[in-house]
């Protein structure tokens, strides 16, 4: 196995799935966000988002907290420290792969 293939195989599969990557990106940029915001921002269905959040929570990347704002119940999600580290590692690995392939410059015709 070439080193590049080895790097690809080491990518975090929990994050690599597009829907979960979108959730990590949104939470990475926003901080905390509730279920409804994530659903609308990412274009998820309720069940789909619920399933992906469960996987991220299981991996310890996302913390889900039930709280209230005024009298409104909110299911607030946020990245954990482990999740931030994993996301940073994933980003660096992916960037390294793309840069080594010359994919970070101008788009090819």
């Amino acid at each position, binding site marked *: 196995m070439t080193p590049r293939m080895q790097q690809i195989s080491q990518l975090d599969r929990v994050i690599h799935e597009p829907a979960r990557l979108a959730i990590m990106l949104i939470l990475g*940029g926003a901080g*905390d*966000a509730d279920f409804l*915001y994530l659903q609308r921002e990412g274009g998820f269905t309720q069940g789909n988002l619920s399933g992906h959040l469960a996987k991220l929570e299981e991996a310890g990347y996302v913390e*889900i907290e039930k709280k209230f704002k005024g009298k409104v119940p909110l299911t607030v999600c946020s990245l954990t420290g482990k999740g931030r580290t994993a996301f940073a590692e994933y980003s660096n690995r992916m960037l390294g792969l793309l840069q080594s392939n010359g994919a970070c410059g101008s788009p090819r015709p």
Partner: protein
Amino acid sequence: MKNSAIPIASPGRRAASYWFVDGLPDILLGMTLLIFGGVGLWWGIHLSKSATQPDFFLIAAGVLLLYWKERGILDFLKSRLTYPRSGYVRPPEDLSEIGLPNTLTALSLKPWPPSDENVTHFRTRTVLVVFWWCLLLCRDSRWNRWFTLLATPALAVALYAWNRNSEHPYRWWSTLILALTGPTLLLTEAPLPVQPLLMPLLAGVWLVAQGACTLVGYLRANPYPRTQEGVSA
């Protein structure tokens, strides 16, 4: 989700612009200017005109109160109006408060890790700009008429240009209306007590009108959900 006029790709900037999606920050700032400007006007008309001008101090008190309580008031209103309809996201930090950007790494094809972008420039680029323009006009009533002529278009240009690439851009035609109201009002003879407060009252009306339009658009685009969301995770 209906958002600001300029599409923002970055999740952090989208989260920051979400704070303005319902127009409530504009309405609150506009109402502050109108209330405190109105009290100043009432003071000028009904109470004795002392050597010290109460107008400026009242506007300053209003802006300080806004700085102090803005987040709490908006959070209270948003928790009843916005969050049940389109969800909650952490309110943006003020850039001046967080200082240097932290090193949160997100997926980006840039050679450096992007900073946390969920920050707002609203206080420095809108609240303070309006405040300093009002301060200019409240200081010396002899110049009010001509200052209004020049300052209203200048305020409109400043608000448009400085916020153009921010999380809360103003539409060009909206700022054009503000720019034209100053010279238009100059053609009408405003009573003397009104003149020092023309700018804060104008800015207040403009902000409330702008926020109200945004709020109506938001309420139409985001009806109240029939069932409460829930996560099974």
